[in-house]
């Protein structure tokens, strides 16, 4: 953020158009470079959330899977705030794990 952006924010004005241009470009290029269309990305997001929510309880509203790009390298970034860890699925070998995770209620994000 530049000083001008900060002043604009204080005054409730729109950010400078160059800032908007840069943000829009970064987003569109992440998609261009990965050749993933938004539909596919959305499908992938749903599936990732589904898998993760099998293990931990996540905030589905806040959960965000997006493409970011830096230095021509595109990364898939998942930001999934965890409400609480779920009891591990009951298996024969680890019956003790159940009670342990019950009390935990951390809110932390993995990215």
């Amino acid at each position, binding site marked *: *953020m*530049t*000083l*001008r952006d*900060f*002043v604009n924010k204080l005054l409730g004005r729109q950010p*400078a*158009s*160059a*800032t908007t*241009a*840069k943000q*829009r*470009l*970064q987003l*569109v*290029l992440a998609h*261009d*470079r990965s050749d993933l269309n938004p539909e596919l990305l959305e499908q992938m997001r749903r599936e990732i959330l589904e898998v993760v929510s099998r293990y931990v309880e996540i905030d589905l509203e806040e959960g965000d899977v997006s493409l970011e790009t830096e*230095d*021509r390298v595109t990364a898939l970034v998942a930001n999934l705030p965890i409400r609480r860890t779920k009891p591990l699925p009951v298996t024969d070998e680890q019956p003790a794990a159940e009670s342990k995770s019950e009390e935990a209620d951390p809110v932390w994000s993995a990215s």
Partner: protein
Amino acid sequence: MPVTTSGSRSILICSGKGGVGKTTLTANLGIALARQGVRTAVLDADFGLRNLDLLLGLENRIVYTAQEVLSGSCRLDQALVKHKQEPNLALLPAGNPRMLEWLKPEDMQTIVGMLRESFDVVLIDCPAGIEDGFKNAAGAAEEAIVITTPEVSAVRDADRVIGLLNTRGIKPIQLVLNRVRPKMMANQEMLAVDDVTDILALPLLGLVLEDEQVIVSTNRGEPLTLNGSSSPAAQAYNNIARRVCGEDVPLIDPAKVRRGLRAKIGRLMHTKIF
């Protein structure tokens, strides 16, 4: 990279988007290199919409084109149009648009290969787009200069082209940022130079300021670098030519082009605070 006697260089000048200054750069860089004593050939690879001859003022002197060279109906030196004022520069004109129906990447490689035998540098003026015309031209180049303007559409298209050049193993790929308006940049109403280089992740070969003299020079068919013009764009093109030859010429800082208190405040407002 210095021009060595052992190897001649083939440099593609491309942008993806049309109208950002490929042909103007090719013409001015060609003349500037020639004036430095580099034997330079400029090849118009835009067979559909050729214009390099016009910008160089050579449109009335074309007899044969790349088409006749390829079909064997003339020799290369018969098709080459030598610039009268700058004999180190020669143009190989684009052929008929109908050539596009049968032209293959190998044909372009043949032409460029022939040119490299008698020139130090071959500049290939690439057509806009990323279709066959681009592929033909890119197939004949070892290095590339990508030119763009600080606008979202031009930067996006440049990014596509850079991706394709990377896949082809073309390197180095360097960037020329054209039509820079220092005042708009200072007001943050135009993408900053760093923004563009960060996004495209290419080394900057040159910055060309927006300059009305470019239009005047194209009207006349006399590239700015031909007559020692001191206009900002002419200086930029000359500096690019020196950098192409391996000279270390500092880049201009658009913020320093403007002086006075307003410019100072503009620079302060541009400071990254977090």
